[in-house]
């Protein structure tokens, strides 16, 4: 009993770091006192006359990411202009960001700024943790340069809550042009009917024509587009921050909602255009199958450029078109935001940072130029133009907390695809479930 503690303290004091094996790791490992708690993360007065404010910032950018250098360049540019603010950027992966923020909020220990995905914003707003930026926003001269759909995501009852948009991920119809040519399909489909026709030709040539996600976080982002295209929404505002799914209020709407489910069902079962396995595909499976040309087309995002390295041969013929539509063209805008919280001890500095990232200078840098949220920043390229061209038809999520609702969306479609329920049953059930969830969340 009396020996071991001293051995432990030795290790904890860093004796272990002197060992040979670890010595090889070099400077990265030489950081002293790794076990000590971070002393007062809020401020770090460097004692150089002026007080330095440290902003704790969580972002999903890791040192080995392709755009790491570009992203760091943005931070560096900000530091150069604001020598009194130090941005302490810590990597938190996308999958973990929302969890981390909700846990930290419950523990009262939120960072100053967090890089956030659009579906998390209404959740944070409902949790009451977002900073109210209305005043700063109104005083900001450049605000009108931002696409309005990106601002909608942070507008709650005419107030600006939480943050600013900083980049766009836009979905487009991506198809393998060689496979289409091989099957004799001359142009990419423009409508749902075209998609079916093209899919049947591809099927004759032995190629599965289309694919989608049956589950995972991508699924709701895909199906919402088809509802929009059929002049519906998963929930519509009814004033005072409340929402309602109106499908069951109106037989005509219910019929249109049913059409969306029927469309999915027909693609898979009636026409055999989409492989049956897609009922359980997550986004990894969908993206990989598109990249490997196991399916000839899918609705997907600009990140598919990353697959050019993995699958150079099959990705060579990838081409783009707007998403086939029914009544109204629409696509999903994945707007990433930089968000700050009401509890942040440095609201002024946090706003400085937010404003900088959405400003013209930063948006024109390599990190953002291909996916800028500003209409006054333009770029061209195979993986840029086809997507940015779709901004006018782009839409963002309604401002409802999505946790329960996206699960209901997955369940409803999977039920139809796995032939456990009919399209009409699924549409009715989903409508009721969405309203029940809104009720439970206090948003009805």
């Amino acid at each position, binding site marked *: 009993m009396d020996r071991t503690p001293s051995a432990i303290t030795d290790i904890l004091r860093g004796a272990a770091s002197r060992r040979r094996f670890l010595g090889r790791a070099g400077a990265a490992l030489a950081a002293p006192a790794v076990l000590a708690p971070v002393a007062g993360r809020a401020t770090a007065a460097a004692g150089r006359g002026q007080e330095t404010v440290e902003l704790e910032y969580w972002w999903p950018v890791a040192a080995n990411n392709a755009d790491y250098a570009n992203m760091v360049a943005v931070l560096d540019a900000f530091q150069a202009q604001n020598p009194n603010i130090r941005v302490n950027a810590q990597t938190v992966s996308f999958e973990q960001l929302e969890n981390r923020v909700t846990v930290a909020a419950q523990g009262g220990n939120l960072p100053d700024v967090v890089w956030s995905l659009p579906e998390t914003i209404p959740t944070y707003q409902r949790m009451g943790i977002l900073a109210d930026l209305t005043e700063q926003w109104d005083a900001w001269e450049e605000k009108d340069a931002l696409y309005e759909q990106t601002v909608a995501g942070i507008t709650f009852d005419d107030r600006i809550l939480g943050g600013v948009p900083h980049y766009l991920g836009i979905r487009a119809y991506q198809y393998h042009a060689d496979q289409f040519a091989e099957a004799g399909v001359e142009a990419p489909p423009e409508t749902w009917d075209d998609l079916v026709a093209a899919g049947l030709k591809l099927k004759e040539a032995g190629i599965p024509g289309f694919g989608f996600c049956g589950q995972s976080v991508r699924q709701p982002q895909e199906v919402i587009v088809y509802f929009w295209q059929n002049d519906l929404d998963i929930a519509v505002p009814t004033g005072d921050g409340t929402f309602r799914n109106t499908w069951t209020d109106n037989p005509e709407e219910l019929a249109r909602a049913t059409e969306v489910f029927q469309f999915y069902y027909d693609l898979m079962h009636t026409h055999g255009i989409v492989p049956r396995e897609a009922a359980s595909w997550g986004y990894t499976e969908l993206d990989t199958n598109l990249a490997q040309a196991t399916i000839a087309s899918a609705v997907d995002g600009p990140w598919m450029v990353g697959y050019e*390295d993995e699958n150079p041969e099959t990705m060579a013929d990838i081409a783009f078109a707007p998403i086939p539509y029914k009544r109204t063209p629409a696509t999903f805008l994945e707007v990433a935001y930089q968000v700050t919280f009401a509890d942040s001890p440095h609201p002024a500095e946090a706003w400085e940072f937010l404003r900088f990232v959405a400003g013209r200078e930063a948006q024109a840098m390599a990190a953002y130029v291909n996916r800028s949220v500003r209409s006054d920043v333009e770029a061209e390229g195979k993986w840029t133009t086809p997507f940015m061209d779709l901004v006018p038809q782009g839409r963002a999520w309604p401002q409802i907390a999505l946790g329960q609702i996206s699960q209901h969306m997955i369940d409803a479609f999977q039920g139809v695809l796995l032939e456990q329920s009919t399209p009409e049953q699924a549409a009715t059930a989903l409508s009721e479930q969405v309203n029940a969830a809104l009720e439970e969340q206090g948003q009805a």
Partner: protein
Amino acid sequence: MTSTTWRRWSWPVLLAYACVAVLLAYALFPVLWMVSTALKPTPEIRTAEPTFVPSRPTFEHFGLVLGQSNFLTYVRNSLLVATTVTAATLVVSTLAGYAFSRFGRLPGISLAGVAMVLGQMVPGVLLVVPLYITMNNLGLLDSLWSLILTYTTFSVPLSTLMLKGFFDQVPTEVEEAAQLDGCPPSQVVWRIVLPLAVPGLMTTALYAFVQSWNEFLFGYTFISQDDRRTLTPGLADFIGLWTVDWGALMAAASLAVLPVTLAYLYLQRYLISGIATGATKG
């Protein structure tokens, strides 16, 4: 089934080797796939017609992991945490395991045993928030101590019960004699019982080490600073929003598996030596 009844390459021996082959195939298939992926150049990794053996092996992914990521920092932190947890778990569990084994009938002791199993029943998911709040109050967030305390708490119950099982196997005659001679209890444990339970201690140590080495949920919740991050949460560096750097991820995972397996290879002499058998008289 002792060795004396076996002749070399008789059919039971061949059968045994065949069983070992099947067992290893099951155990190692995904691991070999992992290593093979790590050694493949990127265009060969995710293809519609996968092959097991890399046609053009490369070390570029290993180079990326060791050179351009924080992998080594994460390894250092995980080593610190895992060794501390292992040491603490051994001390705490040896004492408690011995008490449960020899004095389980004393009032209150059995209650502690029940509490120990009860404590394991709260789903880990529900421990995250309360423990986060506790660590915040203790000022331990972003400190490896938060992980050390948590992991030790998690590994003590199984370790204690396991060691109790091992102590149960050790005959009590010698201890009784020593105790009658007036030897203090701590000495009885240290000098007499522990040496007989070395295989059990080593297994326990390995368990505590691997649990802390591989833990993910608390590791990523309690630590935000990159330079304090541990290995398993750190692997998420290779997973992007919609894309995964498979080559680097598999290279990092292959490297992460190495220390534990090598340690086991070394520890085996303690695990398998016939220490316990010599003293046992049925």
